[in-house]
């Protein structure tokens, strides 16, 4: 489903932020990507979204080689990938329902479909009653669940989460992770970038550890690497 071959990305002359990475992720996998600040995790996410072009190497997603995707077809690639960020990135002037619906509007989904999907998604993340609330009226955990609902409402086969629990207390962090696991069980490939050692250790999933742009370990049912 996702395949990186000898991928490097250098922002400027100097040591690359991503250095000769080889990763293969199958459909339906749940993968943690961990590593210190500055290790190159967000850069990796941006490469997958084609926000950045690799300096060298080859990235294939869903059988499509990213380098060969034309500029005007980038939106189609991105419709296959839902994204969630540490800072939620919700629209502050729109309520919960409108925020989730926004993702559907953007892909020009018809009203009948929106009316069915948005409420279904909201009840899946447990926010059905709060559909009229504005982001500032929600807790961090709730905001992140809105963001997850928004990322998934278009049914992307892949979900990328860059530090989804970075701004959350342990309880909310844990609930968010459980939600992501639930989503994975429904068939979505989930990739989570995180610093949260406890969660990673408890979840017993595949863990890829990155340091200075290199992969230093890639373990099935692993834990947060202790070498760093």
């Amino acid at each position, binding site marked *: 489903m996702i395949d990186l071959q000898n991928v490097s990305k250098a922002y400027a002359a100097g040591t690359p932020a991503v250095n000769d990475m080889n990763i293969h992720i199958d459909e339906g996998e749940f993968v943690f990507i961990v590593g210190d600040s500055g290790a190159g995790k967000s850069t990796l996410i941006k490469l997958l*979204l084609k926000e950045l072009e690799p300096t060298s190497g080859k990235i294939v997603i869903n059988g499509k080689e990213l380098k060969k995707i034309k*500029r005007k077809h980038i*939106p189609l690639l*991105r*419709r296959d990938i839902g994204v969630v960020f540490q800072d939620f*990135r919700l*629209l502050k002037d729109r309520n919960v329902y409108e925020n989730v619906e926004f993702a559907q509007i*953007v892909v*020009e989904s018809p009203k009948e479909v929106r009316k069915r999907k948005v409420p279904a998604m909201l009840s899946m993340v447990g926010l059905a009653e709060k559909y009229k609330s504005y982001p500032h009226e929600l807790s961090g955990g709730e905001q992140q669940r809105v963001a997850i609902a928004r990322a998934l409402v*278009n049914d992307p086969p892949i979900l990328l989460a860059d530090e989804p629990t970075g701004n959350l207390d342990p309880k909310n962090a844990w609930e968010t992770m459980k939600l992501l696991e639930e989503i994975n069980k429904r068939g979505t490939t989930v990739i989570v970038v995180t610093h949260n050692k406890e969660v990673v250790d408890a979840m017993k999933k595949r863990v890829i550890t990155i340091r200075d742009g290199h992969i230093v370990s890639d373990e099935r049912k692993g834990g947060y690497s202790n070498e760093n």
Partner: protein
Amino acid sequence: MKIKTFFYCLKQGFINLKRNKLFTLASVGTITACIFLIGLFYAVLVNIQHIVKSAEGNVCIEIFFDKEATDEQIKDIGEQIKRRAEFGTIEYISPEQAWENYKNQYFAEDPELAEGFADDNPLADSDSYKVTLNDVSMQDVFVDFVNDLDGVRKVNYSESTADTLTDFGKIVGFISGAIIIILLAVGIFLISNTIMIGITVRKEEIGIMKLMGAKDMFVRAPFMVEGVTIGIIGALIPMGVLYIIYKKVIVYILEQFNGIENVMTLLSTGEVFSVLLPAALIIGGGIGIIGSVITMRKHLRV
């Protein structure tokens, strides 16, 4: 793009306009001024042209032939005249016709008096060509040319006012052209800035849209709507104002200068605005599109 998406983008465009009132007003104002000048210039110009044209129609050159000129020669003169670039129309006036005209003019009240000449046309040698030119500024050149032709005895012509009219028109044209170009540039600049502010305000939203797979057109259309709307409003306002002014001016001139219709006629509002209104809308819309596209190219890359 689907119809519903189109309306969504339309709505977003209007929301942008409202959020950004001050710049919207400044842009609309500049374009209004610009298109008002274009319209004013056009209205004056077409009327001058119209008057000059009707004046040119009156400015006719009469060519008389030598007594001994043969019919062949006269025909040949006509052919040579027709080959000139500035040539407009030509009419052969036979001696009989010349006499007929003369009679009508001078013996209208005394037809019997004219009968005395009935069998002895006093204008027997006064056949002529009546020529009009399509470019009156070439009149001097043309007259010189005809004077040099064999068989030509005399060329009658009147110094026309057309020359000075066209020169004056040119100066007005240059100055107006310069002002219009400057205003067009300012208009594009202001629209472009208005849109840039819109993009800046919605930066976060645009970023999210792109990550979620919005197509370029979907992201851009609202800003395009914004630009075109500003342009079109900036065209409609001056057209409305000009229409009212123009109507008043026509009425005023007709009242002030009684009988002026015979000397010079002005074009009707319909004649002027059937061209001017669509042109203004195209210019306004065009400024809007150019202004927004310039900005989006700079600030809305995927």
